[in-house]
Structures are given as structure tokens and as C-alpha cells.
């Protein structure tokens, strides 16, 4: 029930935000009437299953579920026997501003910002109302957000391969759709460079 309300809240925010994006997307895909919702980097990606971008294919419910799944898998990893061995310590400092400004957000804010970023990056609106009832903004400076975290290539790869992709497939996203409308963002060299080694 809580997720349903959250999904409705996000969907409402999406509709509202969508009204403001008309100027950026006033042309449908060639030969179709499909007009993407957002303006983020993944707006132009097309899922194999639908020929629409990820947000317009899966919608708010799925984005909430995937975001919560990523958080749950990450926490399970950190609380497990391996602790921070695979993911590094960056996640453990969330909410501890004494470690640097990139860690200033508490866990709930981090989760909301991650959701907003995913929604925006994959073709959704620029801001959302998340399950905590707060509004978060999607466009974020990734380099600044990861400054001082010293995330390694191995940690990034481990996070994407063992947290993010399983979170997507666990929630019903097919391998073909993972490849076509999710992967290009997180495997993009420039995007990765904005996170790794900062």
C-alpha cells in the first residue's frame, strides 16, 4: 500500500513536471506519436520491448521498486560477512559530514536523491516526490556528489554488476531492456569517470 501511494506521488509529480517539459520535447519519434516525458540523458534511449525510453516503459512503480532494491542489496552487502570489502567505505559514511561535504546527506535523503537521479536520467521528470513525501531533484553534479569518496574501478564495477543489474532483473526488466535502455548511461565512459577516482 505504501509503495502504491509512493508510486502515485511520483506519477503525479511526473505529470506535473511533464507539463513543464513540453518545449523540450515537442516532436514525437519519427513515424510514431510517442513523445518522451523528460529531458535527461536517457530520454533518447529505446527499450527493446517497447521502443520507448525506460521511464515511459516501466513507470513510477518500477523505478521505486528498483531504487529500493538497490538500497536493500547494498545494505545487505555492507551488513554481511564481507562488509565493505567489495563496495568500499563510501556508502558507510553517508550522513557523516565530518568525512566531507559529499557525505552530508543522511540515508533517507541519499535514497530520495538516487531515485530522482534515476528517474531523470532515464527519461522521467526533473523532480519527483519520493516515498518520504519530500521532493528531490534529478539533475545532479555527479563529480561533486562523489568528491572525496575515492571510489575505485573495481568497486564501481561490483556495484553495477552485483547490485544494480540484479535489482533491475529481480524487478522484471529483461536482459534485452537492461542492455538497450538502462546500460548505456552507467557504462558510459564519461559518466563513470565522473564517479570513479574522485
Amino acid at each position, binding site marked *: 500500500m505504501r509503495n502504491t501511494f509512493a508510486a502515485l506521488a511520483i506519477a503525479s509529480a511526473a505529470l506535473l513536471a511533464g507539463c513543464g517539459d513540453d518545449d523540450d520535447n515537442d516532436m514525437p519519434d519519427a513515424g510514431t506519436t510517442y513523445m518522451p516525458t523528460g529531458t535527461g540523458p536517457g530520454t533518447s534511449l529505446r527499450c527493446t520491448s517497447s521502443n520507448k525510453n525506460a521511464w515511459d516503459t516501466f513507470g513510477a512503480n518500477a523505478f521505486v521498486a528498483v531504487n529500493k532494491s538497490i538500497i536493500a542489496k547494498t545494505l545487505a552487502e*555492507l*551488513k*554481511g*560477512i*564481507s*562488509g*565493505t*570489502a*567489495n563496495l568500499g*567505505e563510501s*556508502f*558507510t*559514511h553517508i*550522513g*557523516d*559530514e*565530518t*568525512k566531507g561535504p559529499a557525505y*552530508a546527506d*543522511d540515508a533517507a535523503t541519499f535514497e530520495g536523491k538516487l531515485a530522482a537521479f534515476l528517474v531523470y536520467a532515464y527519461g522521467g521528470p526533473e523532480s519527483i516526490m519520493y516515498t518520504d513525501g519530500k521532493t528531490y531533484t534529478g539533475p545532479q553534479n555527479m563529480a561533486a556528489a562523489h568528491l572525496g569518496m575515492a571510489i575505485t574501478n*573495481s568497486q564501481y*564495477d*561490483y556495484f*553495477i*554488476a*552485483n547490485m544494480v*543489474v540484479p535489482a533491475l*532483473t529481480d524487478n522484471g526488466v529483461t*536482459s*534485452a531492456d*537492461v*542492455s*538497450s535502455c*538502462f*546500460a*548505456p548511461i*552507467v*557504462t*558510459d*565512459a564519461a559518466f*563513470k569517470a565522473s564517479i570513479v577516482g574522485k
Partner: protein
Amino acid sequence: MTRFVLTRAMRRALVSIAGVAVLFTAVMGYAHTPSGRPLLKWMGMSMPQAASAAGCPLGYDVKQSPEQKEAARQRFAAAYRGESAALARPALGFDLEQTTREALLEWAQAHGVKCTVPRSQGDLDCADVPASLFPGLKREADIRNLWVTFGADGRLVSLIAVSRAVEAAPISATFRAANATLATLAGPALKRDGEGSVEELKQGLLRQASAEYRFQDFYALTRVTNMGDGFVLTEEYRALPKVAARELPSR
């Protein structure tokens, strides 16, 4: 109806207790806000867990005690234990619950492998381990990071190996070899998703194949991923703590 009469002293005591409780709640609440972090840190200085000053308020970056590690193993086992015992527990040639920390470090030193002790919970992090150090396992990909965990008795309880290569072929071959070894020595996989062939992995970005092995005393997972700028193989080998017969899952 009986009427309770509070004396002035009792009323004062109750008001004082309530006041202290409200003040404590307010201070702790403030301490957990971003602006109250220095206060939380100062308070943490007197707590044993915060011996490493300025540590994570959640405590994840503090080394786990042997009891905490064992509890984490038990939680993992409860969630992932299979029904039957593994025929054997292959783990890159090491013996789970036998190989000691000293023996592994000697092996690493003898082969020029550099292992470090992470500041947090992981027990050893060995980097750049050549495939040639595992004769007989048909590995073609070098291991970029080998994360090793030991139990309270200093013996090996888990290995996580992450291998990476620019080309799909060595990673695919190593994925298939690892699964062949596991299936032959431990027993069949509980769940398989994809074959991990070069053709399959090259079908798209983040294309994965995986196999999961669940036994009463052993857990293993192999997962190969097309990362776009290369191919990554993750292998997990974990010894599960023994359980009393009455605690085993019923058939």
C-alpha cells in the same frame, strides 16, 4: 474508587524524570541532524565502538568483532543454505575452514601477490593475481581483486574474486571453467541464468550470465557481466557454518 494522592516530592520526581527524558531525546535528535554531527562525534569518543575517532556513526567502518562476523555468517547461511551437503567445497584451490591466514599470506608472498589489510571489515585484499597461479582450474583471466575473509579461528571462510578483461573470451572461458569445477566437485547449480558464451555476452551492454550453488555447508555464485569497456567475472565461495540436524530444512 481509590484515589491516589501524589506528594509534592513524588510530583517533583516525576516532573524531573520527564524533563530529563525530553532533554535527552532533544539532544540525541539534534545530534543526528547534519549540523549536530560534531556533537554526535564528541559523544562517540567515550564509546568503545568509536575508538577510531571520527568513524562512521553506523559503525560499518569499524572492524567487526569475531562474534559479529560469526553472526553475519549465520544470517547469510540462514538465507542461502541449501538442503544437501556439497560433495566438496572448491574455492580456487584453497581449503575452506582449513586454510589459515598465515598460509594464505605465505602463498601470496611466494608468488609475488600483494595483499593488504583493508581498514574496514574485509580481512585481506589481494590484487592482481595471475591466472597461472591456479593450475588445473583452466582459468584464462587474471583476478584483479581477491577479497578474503577469515573466521574467528583465523581460518578461511570466504573468497570473492573479481576478474576483468577487455575481451570477452578469457572471461567467458573462466566463467565456464569455474562452473564446470563447481558442478563436478560440489554438485549441480540451483539456478542458472545464461551460458556466458562470448556471443551471449556480446549481445548487449550489462548482459549477464550467472549460476548459484546452494548447499548445506557451502555457497557459491558466479556472475559475468559485459561492462561496456570490458568484461567482469565475480566469483563467490563461502563456507556455511555447520548446523545441528534438527535445524536443517525439512524435505
